[in-house]
């Protein structure tokens, strides 16, 4: 059922942009933050804002308890088999780099192969290029289907006995194509390789069960799922995490430090050096609570309703070219306006108070696949309304007169 009950939870939606009520259609870049998350983070700083894993006084224990309880919460949220499989990171990018440089690179030999795809976000693309170059390994690309997804057969077509590691997204950031990650994991394991899933775009929209998927690693960010920036999660099967080298060395991750040698804590603590992002982890916990209160079913229905409403109207406009019309689970619409450069268009939206994304969207490989230098992307979340779509469509109709912005 479509409703607008959630909008009031997001204080930023009371703001204006360029003198117009703010319409936010860029949630695939970062979601807005609800009041409950802001309050929870404020509460930490105001009421028990001390360090974790150190203080033997009562307030330190309170901070510890709040912080570590989020690990339990994340474990249940993604259905990991133990809380020790949950590593807090700065975000998806950091999580992927930790695996690339701490797990894959040390094991990689010249001639080995890493498989990824052309629809990956740069965060799940550039680290693999670098790791492959450093090890003399080869990067292979699983072909995309018409919707921009990697099918199990497509993955199989590039796998070989040389494949050591596979890195694919769960949902892509431009086309929002959904990959059957369970089947992709199965194919990977049949070849004796291991797989990391970039879940940054999926976690805000789909219930995740890492044991059912049977992936070896899964990474996601807090800020795309109503949480704060600066926090994310790396899930890893415990044996994989125990075999992974730390990416950062320092305090908190150590067991015993002697003059010339140091031993480290077990996973996940060995990967959380220094003072962690305490308020952000606690905020992530509040975001999970909030998301579960709404429920994925509600989020999906809301987004699908709004997306269909937008697609129907966009399809009436002959100047609009949509790249992912059939990705019905998608929370994005990737499109261009004929004869209008995306940056010319985005200023028209901007001046109408409508925030959408323009450019290469951190996915230059994908854009080269669809032969576009830059595109427009609008993306939806549960706080959007039909009125937002009406404003978006009105701006779209004005975008062909893009020079108007110079003469207002």
């Amino acid at each position, binding site marked *: 059922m479509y409703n607008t009950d959630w909008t009031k939870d997001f204080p930023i939606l009371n703001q204006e942009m360029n003198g117009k009520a703010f319409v936010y259609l860029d949630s695939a870049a970062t979601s807005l933050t609800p009041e409950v998350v802001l309050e929870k983070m404020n509460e930490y700083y105001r009421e028990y804002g001390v360090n974790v894993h150190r203080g033997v006084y009562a307030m330190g224990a309170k901070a510890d308890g709040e912080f570590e309880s989020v690990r339990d919460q994340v474990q249940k949220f993604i259905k990991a088999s133990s809380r020790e499989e949950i590593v807090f990171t700065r975000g998806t990018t950091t999580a992927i780099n930790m695996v690339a440089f701490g797990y894959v690179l040390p094991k990689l030999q010249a001639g080995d192969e890493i498989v990824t795809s052309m629809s990956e976000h740069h965060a799940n693309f550039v680290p693999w290029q670098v790791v492959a170059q450093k090890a003399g390994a080869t990067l292979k690309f699983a072909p995309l289907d018409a919707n921009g997804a990697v099918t199990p057969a497509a993955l199989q077509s590039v796998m070989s006995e040389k494949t050591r590691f596979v890195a694919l997204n769960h949902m892509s950031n431009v086309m929002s194509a959904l990959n059957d990650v369970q089947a992709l994991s199965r194919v990977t394991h049949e070849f004796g390789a291991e797989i990391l899933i970039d879940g940054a775009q999926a976690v805000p929209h789909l219930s995740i069960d890492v044991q059912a998927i049977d992936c070896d690693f899964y990474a996601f960010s807090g800020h795309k799922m109503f949480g704060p920036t600066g926090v994310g999660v790396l899930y890893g099967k415990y044996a994989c995490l125990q075999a992974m080298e730390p990416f950062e060395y320092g305090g908190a991750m150590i067991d015993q430090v002697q003059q010339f040698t140091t031993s480290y804590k077990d996973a996940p603590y060995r990967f959380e050096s220094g003072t962690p992002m305490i308020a952000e982890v606690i905020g992530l916990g509040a975001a999970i609570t909030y998301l579960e209160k709404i429920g994925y079913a509600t989020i999906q229905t809301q987004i699908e309703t709004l997306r269909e409403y937008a697609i129907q109207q966009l399809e009436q406009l002959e100047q609009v070219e949509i790249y992912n019309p059939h990705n019905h689970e998608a929370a994005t619409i990737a499109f261009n306006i004929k004869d209008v*450069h*995306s*940056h010319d268009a985005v*200023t028209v939206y901007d001046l109408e108070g409508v925030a959408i994304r323009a450019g290469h969207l951190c996915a230059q490989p994908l854009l080269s696949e669809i032969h576009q*230098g830059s595109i427009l992307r609008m993306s939806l979340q549960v706080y959007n309304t039909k009125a937002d779509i009406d404003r978006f469509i009105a701006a779209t109709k004005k975008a062909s007169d893009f*020079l108007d912005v110079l003469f*207002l």
Partner: protein
Amino acid sequence: MSYSYDEQMFRQIIMDHYKTPRFKGLVEQPGFVTVHLKNPSCGDDMQVQTQVENGVITEVHHDGSGCSICCASASMMAQLVSGETIEQAQAKKQAFYDMVSGQGIDEELLDEAISLQGVAKLPPRIKCATLGWKAFEQTISKETVEQAEGVTIVTE
């Protein structure tokens, strides 16, 4: 829709430079300095090529892709600085920077480029309007010219 006379003229100038750019396309000859600038956030990509003889800019070429403001501005830039002395070209460049940052419009120096004066009200687009000028500026900078001729400098 009715526009003021100026506005109508400005629109025509911008669209004309956007659709039929002047001095577009690079040449492969010795004696040119080429600078390649990109705006990684939006994908604007601009190369500017300059030949200087006895302190005079004898030829300017540009090539690239980007939005209307970026492309039209590069075309206007090439038209404005061709045949000028380095000092005159630098004065025009400064006049353009001043205009798009809202610090006054020198019609005499900027000629058709005054059509882009509205950029001053669009802060996120200033970097579009100045990309070609910034590349040009680097082609005539002392450091660049002192390097081997024909060198291509890529900066982001």
